[in-house]
């Protein structure tokens, strides 16, 4: 029996969640050689509204293409965090953009101010999604940063490769930092138990 790892990237329309879903799926599928399916769900609006992109990864053929219980949840706004947190697997990873998500439902959440970092370090808030992608490479062993970099270069607009690569590595180092801070602290997660009822 093979494994199945499910990732949900959520936020609002225009934050680039579908793009990072595609990059992630390409990195895992073509560069790491895994089976992948990427799906999406969004409203009819071009910007705003709820948006999510999902990637299912497995070492065997994937039948049902959507997540059943999410292993890794990225929430880039409060609404998506509130809506999708209950779908997170027990022991699953929650990554939040703490620029927008203030009420965090789990003490074990990895908090990174993705948009703030993108604005301050790269001068472009819109690459926050790529910062998230870099962080994800640190949070799961299933994808390597170099695979992501290769996939990224082919999928972002010409002329933006450099800033996107910098965003990717910024995300990775920020996640390293965040994980180090969390280590050592005995985190008892009451919220997960409560929501399990």
């Amino acid at each position, binding site marked *: 029996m093979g494994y199945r790892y499910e990732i949900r990237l959520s936020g609002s329309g225009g934050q680039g969640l579908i793009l990072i879903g595609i990059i992630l799926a390409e990195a895992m*599928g073509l560069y790491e050689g895994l089976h992948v*399916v*990427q*799906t*999406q769900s*969004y409203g009819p609006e071009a910007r705003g509204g709820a948006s999510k992109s999902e990637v299912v990864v497995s070492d065997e053929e994937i039948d*049902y293409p959507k997540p*059943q219980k999410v292993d890794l949840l990225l929430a880039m706004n409060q609404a998506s965090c509130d809506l999708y947190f209950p779908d997170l697997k027990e022991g699953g990873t929650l990554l939040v953009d703490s620029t927008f998500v203030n009420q965090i439902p789990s003490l074990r959440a990895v908090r990174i101010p993705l948009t703030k970092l993108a604005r301050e370090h790269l001068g472009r808030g819109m690459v926050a999604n790529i910062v998230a992608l870099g962080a994800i490479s640190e949070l799961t062993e299933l994808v390597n940063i170099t695979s992501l970099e290769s996939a990224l270069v082919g999928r972002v607009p010409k002329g933006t490769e450099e800033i996107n690569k910098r965003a990717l590595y910024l995300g990775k180092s920020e996640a390293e930092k965040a994980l180090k801070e969390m280590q050592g602290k005995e985190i008892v997660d009451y919220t997960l138990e409560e929501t399990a009822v």
Partner: protein
Amino acid sequence: MGAERRELLMQGNEAVAEGALAAGCRFFAGYPITPSTEIAEYLSVKLPHLGGTFIQMEDELASMGAVIGASLAGVKAMTATSGPGFSLMQENIGFACEAEVPCVVVNVMRGGPSTGLPTFPAQGDVMQARWGTHGDHPIIVLSAASVPECFSLTVRAFNLSERYRTPIILLLDEVVAHMREKITMPPAEELEIFNRVTPTVPPEWYIPYADTPSGVPPMAPFGEGYRYHVTGLTHDIRGFPTARDDEIGPFIKRLFRKISQNFPDIHMSQTFRTEDAEITVIAYGCVARSAKRAVVEARDRGLKAGLLKLMTVWPFDRSAVEQAARRSKVVLVPEMNMGQISREVKRVNNGVSTVETLNKVDGTLITPGEILEKITEVLS
């Protein structure tokens, strides 16, 4: 990774476009509509480089008209749309049936009726694909459940349309159309491509709607000296309107015969663990994937479940469904509509086994859990 056999991450809609190009499609006319737009987008970039034509028309009525015109001129042609646009195409789809014009219409199903749910999946157009245009007519409708199938069934759709001189409907749903998966593109020489049979006789001997053993008359492209009349009116073998009952009856019967005598070529389905299944799930499109997972999980629990996946939806695959009904105690039909294929299954089943349905119309994909729950409930 060689240049010959490329592995790519591709979207369902893109795979449809690639399949069309591989099949030799060189004309697309359409009007963009979610969730089918990527097919048009992709072909608008690719077709001009291949000497083909891409036209964004004023609406879907005109799109279908342009596709028919292109095909009559000898070019493989297609359009792609979703529910509201599919409704507008119905009249000219009937024209293509009557005038026997090969073409491919991709309908990416979204929630309906009317404008409905542009970005959410549904399977509400199954009966419309069969009976959307008026008049008694046969039609071939295929359904894809994965990105590789989007490619292969588009190629197949073109081959069938060319072979039987008939419009082919390819049904996708929002999930399959927007899903990205890995696909290995087959080298061109490995693909079986069928091109319409053209007349071997000189123009003055050509009889455009002559009966043949296959029921399919050779088709002359306009512009090469073959002049004939094309009409939506019921016509004689020369293409002119007729009121003679001894011409009308044989013509309509030939339209049906060219399809019905080739069911083995047209019907495509797959089975999974049906050998000893006490319950067979019959599904198509994205729901077939949920059903497969449900069957795997049911087997893990010791429940004898199997799956029959339909890839040809119309003409209805009677023999495959009869076999499933005879072998199992129960047949379960999960669908993202209020019961369209399940009606056909009940008709074909004719009381042999019990037919259960599972209908979901809330804009979300039926989950494996929901199917598994039904399997458990039915078998206990």
